[in-house]
């Protein structure tokens, strides 16, 4: 079951594709990459508690540069995960997004942010195992990882789908780590947004994959 395919990009025996659904996701990711490229970092305002006073915090230039690089790389990895027609590449891009999400917040010199990022990093590390295990079981039982062939032949075991989903849940965990909200309160607003965008799109894409294969 492959829904209406708009574009195919053959790359050797891997055929990347954009359907109507993933085309929308692609456009969304591309807009946010563009935003990360052109926008300047925010200046967070901190209200002094109990008074009318407030202070403006400047984001240091080197931190902003690092965050921008990480955000752009994360956006490009997201686009890769969206257009790929191969589960192997999808798992690699998902793992890549996990590492880059850590990278976006890691440069912030704030103990709370770093502590939240560390906990998230542990979850990401655990997430890679079910991610690759799911892909390995699909390859072992069906003999292929191409979404095109899997869509035609079927026969993907439910356990493999489940493991793939758990893996993506682990990798795209960041915005849901709201118990440690500091991870999203780190300074550098347009770049921090990429954490949300990448995990949202990763979830939407894995749903499409699981329904197709």
């Amino acid at each position: 079951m492959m829904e209406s395919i708009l574009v195919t990009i053959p790359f050797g025996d891997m055929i990347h594709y954009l359907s109507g659904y993933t085309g929308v996701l692609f456009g969304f990711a591309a807009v946010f990459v563009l935003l990360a490229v052109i926008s300047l970092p925010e200046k967070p305002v901190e209200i002094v508690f109990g008074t009318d006073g407030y202070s403006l915090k400047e984001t240091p230039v080197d931190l902003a540069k690092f965050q921008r690089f990480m955000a752009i790389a994360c956006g490009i990895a997201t686009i890769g995960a969206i257009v790929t027609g191969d589960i192997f590449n999808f798992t690699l891009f998902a793992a890549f997004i996990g590492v880059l999400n850590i990278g976006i917040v890691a440069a912030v010199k704030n103990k709370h942010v770093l502590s939240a990022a560390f906990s998230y990093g542990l979850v990401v590390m655990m997430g890679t195992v079910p991610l690759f295990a799911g892909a390995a079981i699909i390859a072992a039982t069906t003999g292929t990882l191409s979404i095109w062939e899997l869509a035609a032949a079927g026969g993907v075991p439910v356990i493999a789908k489940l493991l793939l989903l758990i893996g993506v849940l682990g990798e795209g965990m960041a915005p849901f780590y709201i118990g440690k909200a500091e991870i999203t309160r780190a300074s550098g607003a347009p770049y921090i947004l990429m954490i949300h965008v990448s995990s949202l799109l990763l979830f939407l894409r894995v749903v499409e994959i699981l329904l197709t294969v």
Partner: protein
Amino acid sequence: MIEFFAEMDIIYKIGLAVAFIAIIVAFSAIVRQKDEIHLLIIIDLIEITGLVVIALLATDLAEALILPGLVVGVAEIMAVSELWLVKEGLQNVRPVRRLDIEVLHTAPPIIGALLTAYGIFLTGFTGGLIAGLGLALFFLGKATTENFLSSETASGYAWVLWVLAFLIFIFFPSQWFLALMAAAVGIMIKVMAKIALVGTMRGDGS
């Protein structure tokens, strides 16, 4: 999936059982452990045992997934442990004294230059290794205040060159010789930069 297990050799079943016991032990250790650095190490252990399960379950083709699993695992543990070092304020900032004897002033540049020249002549992985050894020796005789960032930058561009060579292989197969040379030079610089970093490791100087 059930038949898949049924027709499996007995040795794989035993291996799987052992690996799953190891995973259960590791997870129970996580529940008990509260110290962050130990959590990090135990989670790495879980990753390794998970890869053991993949290795036992999968066919030859699927075992190709172990390598990216390992690489991604290493990348993640490096990123997270670096984060932990920053968080705990444990980064080493003190300058380290080098061994100040005369032979370290004279010999490293000469031997290093010879090895590097020979390595560049060889190109490829072997050449990178030999040239990298030369550079490592050269750096051993230097203070650690050198600007090592440039060698890391060179390593990054070398990687780009290597990827470009692969794209040439795929899209313009007739230009294979150019691609081969570009890949050889790229991998040489990449390996050289990595080996040379060994020469910059000095411990914590205490």
